[in-house]
């Protein structure tokens, strides 16, 4: 049982994390590097001369980008462990877990870990104004927990009262609001910040859907060896 759990979580997390890392390097990193030119002052938004939208960006950096790949794989392995814990818990209660139903689990994971916190605490490009990081982290964890509980209640209960409660859990963090900076002092063009947020969420969704699919697939596959 334990090896089945650990093996499927490691496989699913590593593969989905590797794909997520490569997608981030391809689609998110160029926007991040571009924004850092503004953050570091090499480019000045609304300076004397207009800036090109296509500056020369630093190329592939083996150490920096290699570390990013490793940390993305670790992050998605962490997601996979949590996801498979919930999947096995649900399977014990009659849910069917495989690669196909895993897709839905993946979407739910994306909503829980990326979309719900990102709905109010939008993914931040380097160089934007933000409130104290500790306060934002507390809000992030609380929002993820609330969204996760809400989606579980929607999926696995058949009770109007609990469904209503799940709506409260989904909405409350955003009605209460996330910690905000006292003033806006972002020095990165809004075009870049918007593109960064969109790319981050898009890559997150693709990676999470794959993670759910892989987790369900390996869970079934490893059952044969259990």
């Amino acid at each position, binding site marked *: *049982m*334990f090896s089945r*759990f*650990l093996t499927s*979580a490691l496989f699913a997390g590593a593969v989905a994390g590797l794909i997520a*890392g490569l997608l*981030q390097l391809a689609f*998110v*990193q160029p926007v*991040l590097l571009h924004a850092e030119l503004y953050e570091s002052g090499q480019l000045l938004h609304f300076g004397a001369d207009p800036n090109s939208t296509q500056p020369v960006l630093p190329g592939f950096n083996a150490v*920096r*980008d290699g*570390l*990013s790949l490793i*940390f*993305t794989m*670790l*992050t998605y*392995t*962490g*997601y*996979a*462990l*949590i*996801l*498979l*814990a*919930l999947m*096995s*818990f649900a399977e*014990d209660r009659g849910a069917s877990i495989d690669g196909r139903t895993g897709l839905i689990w993946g979407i739910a994971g994306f909503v829980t870990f*990326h979309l719900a*916190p*990102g709905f109010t*605490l939008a*993914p*931040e*490009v*380097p160089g934007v104004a*933000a409130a104290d*990081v500790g306060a*934002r*982290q507390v809000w*992030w964890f609380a929002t993820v927990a609330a969204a996760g509980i809400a989606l579980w209640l929607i999926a696995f209960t058949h009770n109007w009262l609990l469904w209503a409660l799940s709506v409260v859990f989904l909405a409350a963090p955003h009605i209460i609001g996330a910690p905000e900076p006292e003033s806006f002092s972002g020095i990165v063009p809004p075009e870049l910040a918007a593109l*960064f947020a969109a790319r*981050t*969420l898009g*890559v*997150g969704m693709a990676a999470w859907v794959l993670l759910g699919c892989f987790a369900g697939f390996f869970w079934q596959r490893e059952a044969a060896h259990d």
Partner: protein
Amino acid sequence: MTSLNHAQIQSNSPSRVRLLTALFGAVLGLALITLTGHVQASALHSAAHDVRHATGFPCH
């Protein structure tokens, strides 16, 4: 003696093992995400900087 055997069987029952495995996995996963995404130690923050931004974790 009978009750002891009964208790031993109970404590190792498949559903309890599954539950403990799931609980252990969830805690381990949460610890991993906290480490890669949230701990503010300088070396960790530098190494994971791009990932934290690109994954939507609060970074700075």
